[in-house]
């Protein structure tokens, strides 16, 4: 059952990225262009997601276990360290250059866009380098 949930959640997430147009780097770069011609849409995507996920997370986090799995897996790391900051700076730079983050990048594979495919392959190379250096 949890396999069907994984596929279903991926589909819902992907459709959310399409409807919100976050799959289009132009919309994301428009949001990051705060000091030019600004498109606030991305902030509304975050608000829409958070008003669902925040209250429901806190409602369910103390339940004994999830419906289709043995236990909840919630990140435990609380450390504010160099890795967190440097990693976020690297990510913010790449995000600001192209306007793609991992979700929209992978979803855009469906559109058979050569540029986004090159980006996704490079991103996976980045994942691999990080796994070998950490």
């Amino acid at each position: 059952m949890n396999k069907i949930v994984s596929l279903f959640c991926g589909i819902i997430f992907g459709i959310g990225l399409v409807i919100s147009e976050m799959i289009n780097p132009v919309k994301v770069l428009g949001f990051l262009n705060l000091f030019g011609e600004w498109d606030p849409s991305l902030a509304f995507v975050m608000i829409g997601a958070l008003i669902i996920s925040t209250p429901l997370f806190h409602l369910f986090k103390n339940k004994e276990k999830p419906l289709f799995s043995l236990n909840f897996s919630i990140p435990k790391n609380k450390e504010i360290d160099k890795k967190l900051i440097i990693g976020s700076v690297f990510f913010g730079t790449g995000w600001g250059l192209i306007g793609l983050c991992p979700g929209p990048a992978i979803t855009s594979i469906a559109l058979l866009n050569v540029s986004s495919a090159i980006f996704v392959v490079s991103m996976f190379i980045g994942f691999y380098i990080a796994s070998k250096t950490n």
Partner: protein
Amino acid sequence: MNIINFTPLSALTGGLLIGLSVILFFILNGRMVGISGIASDFLISKDNRIDNLLFLIGLILGPSIYTFFSGQEIEISISNSLFLLIGGGVLVGFGTRLSSGCTSGHGISGISRFSLRSIIATITFMIVGILTVLVTNIL
């Protein structure tokens, strides 16, 4: 600052769906969604590999299902050079793994949990993204 191309309704609607995906994945499968984590774990870890693959396949099916039901074609525009696409991709991949999260993992899942780590990460990548666009526009 001028506001242009603002689409609050579709942004909010898409956001609600993303929030629904995050919370269903948590309540039903017990995991917090973070696309960079799901994608890189699929690449490097045997744990939950099938689940991670199915989530990624779901993401890629999303646009086709949307087009099937709405009849609307999806258009995106990317005009960067090959060098920038590769550099940007590696920076996003390496950076999100070093900081253990991206826009979804830190920005949505982490903030939902009120994680200070995720709040700091989100503020950092947003500020750096804004500065990068500012510099790109000047150059």
